[in-house]
């Protein structure tokens, strides 16, 4: 494993995308710490998933470099990278009916040998994670028969089983009902407190505020980075990022901490 005092991912002059003549993100210079929470906001098609795929080593930068603790990302073997960065893709399903316990165990693979099989340590780790995420009651259920919210939690459990330092989540709340969204945000806050770095794409600017997260705003091939949600969540900034009128209002109620929430302007 690569160790250093302040672990971070650095992008130097990186062009990200699929075609050289038309990169989705251009000339990116950015340092992302591998701790705390960072939310990624931006319209559809601005390159959130492209950024994630590049950070996961699935997509080589078209030019420039991505380094992890000063070490070029594409030189890290897939199995080693999985110990550093774990990925929670958008809601999905597999064609085969695995049990929840098995799905979470898949996350342990990176810690096994070439023809590796799960051992006692792996089973203990899975028990612990299921317990922490309060999923133990689902242990023997069939993954493909779970609800969307439950599946999302199981995939998070699988990512945690990798014991990675950074968790990348691609719109984890997009297919969840309101209650599940709240539960998921609580889980994310808890993970960050325990020292796991979180990089999360979301379409809800409010999430940044709720999690007191750093904000990475993507817009038309470029980006803005704020290490305070208050700085990013300004009416003018959000309006220009999303191309729709958005207001940010302060709410305060007696006996409760005040909050800033986004409110779209709909006038017809």
């Amino acid at each position: 494993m690569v160790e250093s005092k302040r672990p971070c991912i650095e992008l130097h002059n990186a062009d990200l995308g699929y075609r050289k003549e038309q990169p989705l993100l251009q000339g990116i210079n950015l340092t992302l710490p591998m701790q705390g929470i960072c939310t990624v906001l931006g319209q559809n098609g601005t390159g959130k998933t492209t950024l994630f795929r590049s950070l996961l080593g699935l997509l080589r930068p078209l030019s420039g470099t991505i380094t992890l603790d000063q070490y070029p990302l594409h030189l890290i073997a897939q199995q080693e990278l999985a110990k550093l960065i774990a990925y929670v893709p958008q809601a999905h399903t597999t064609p085969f009916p695995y049990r929840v316990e098995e799905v979470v165990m898949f996350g342990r693979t990176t810690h096994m040998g070439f023809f590796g099989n799960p051992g006692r340590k792996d089973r203990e780790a899975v028990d612990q994670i299921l317990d922490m995420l309060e999923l133990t009651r689902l242990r023997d259920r069939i993954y493909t028969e779970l609800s969307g919210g439950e599946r999302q939690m199981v995939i998070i459990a699988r990512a945690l089983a990798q014991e990675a330092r950074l968790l990348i989540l691609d719109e984890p709340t997009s297919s969840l009902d309101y209650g599940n969204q709240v539960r998921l945000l609580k889980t994310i806050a808890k993970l960050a407190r325990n020292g796991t770095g979180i990089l999360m794409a979301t379409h809800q600017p409010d999430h940044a505020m709720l999690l007191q997260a750093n904000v990475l705003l993507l817009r038309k091939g470029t980006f803005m980075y704020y290490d305070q949600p208050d700085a990013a969540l300004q009416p003018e900034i959000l309006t220009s990022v999303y191309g729709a009128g958005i207001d940010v209002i302060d709410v305060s109620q007696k006996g409760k901490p005040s909050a800033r929430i986004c409110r779209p302007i709909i006038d017809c």
Partner: protein
Amino acid sequence: MLLATAMLVMAVLVSFSIGRYPVTPADALSFLASGQTLDPHLQTVLFRIRLPRIIAAIVAGGALALAGAAYQGMFRNPMVSPDILGVSSGAGFGAALAILLALPVAGVQASAFAGGLIAVVLAVSISRTVGKAHNSTLVLVLAGIIISALFSALVSLIKYTADPESRLPAITFWLMGSLADIRMQELPAVLILVLAGSLPVILSGWKLNLLSFGEEEAKTLGIHTTRLRMLVITAATLITASVIALCGLVGWIGLVVPHIARMLGGPDHRLQLPLSFLLGSSTLLLFDTIARTISASEIPIGIITALTGAPFFIVILKLRTRQSW
């Protein structure tokens, strides 16, 4: 797993006993145990005629089912059979060409084996040259379909030019598959090839599980997917090509049996792969026993597997009430 092993043992006993020359299971057992018998023909019938067929059926059925199970896991598609990358049509072409050129049996087998390998190598290299920007699994499957179609056309061409009195029937019968003419000395080579292909696949069971979440997710979970995929393709091709070289085209086993294994043992490939092998062995042995006993003249086994496989598959589809496989 135990049940499947017991089934296979039963099938072996039944197959030893049934045939044109009647032997009671008791006689067969006592002879196998002691090597002593009063019947002078028993040894010939059991060892020279039935034993090679039984071994061949066990190896071929198991190997085809194993290759099918591995492919279904790798391509994340329960509709895939071991010849998806063109190994069958390639082997068919190799055999047809050898028969046309009047090569001896060993030559036909070698040619079929080589044809199968060449077809898959072609399919894989096509997918590599097209590859990169596209969905690699899809390109691989399409390349397999292209190669299959190409070699099928070449087989038709050979059939068209073949002498309709002698060569054409030989080619046609070969393509239908049969275990009838298998002799003991042909078995060791196939056995070694099948073993060499089966072991790495069975040992990769856990990683195949991860591949069923898709290429990218498997990568982020720490799997070297390209290496694993090449391992499975190489192994499955070796297995299938050597089986086809031995007994011709025997369809359906590789498609249907993995489903039965999955229904009985669940989707974990660590169990499903060996279980598929055992069930495939019993199934093909049973079918071959039927093929040689049901009528006075032998029925090509490819016909029997297709006749029973098709309705059986419909039943499986019907039984699958769940959304997932």
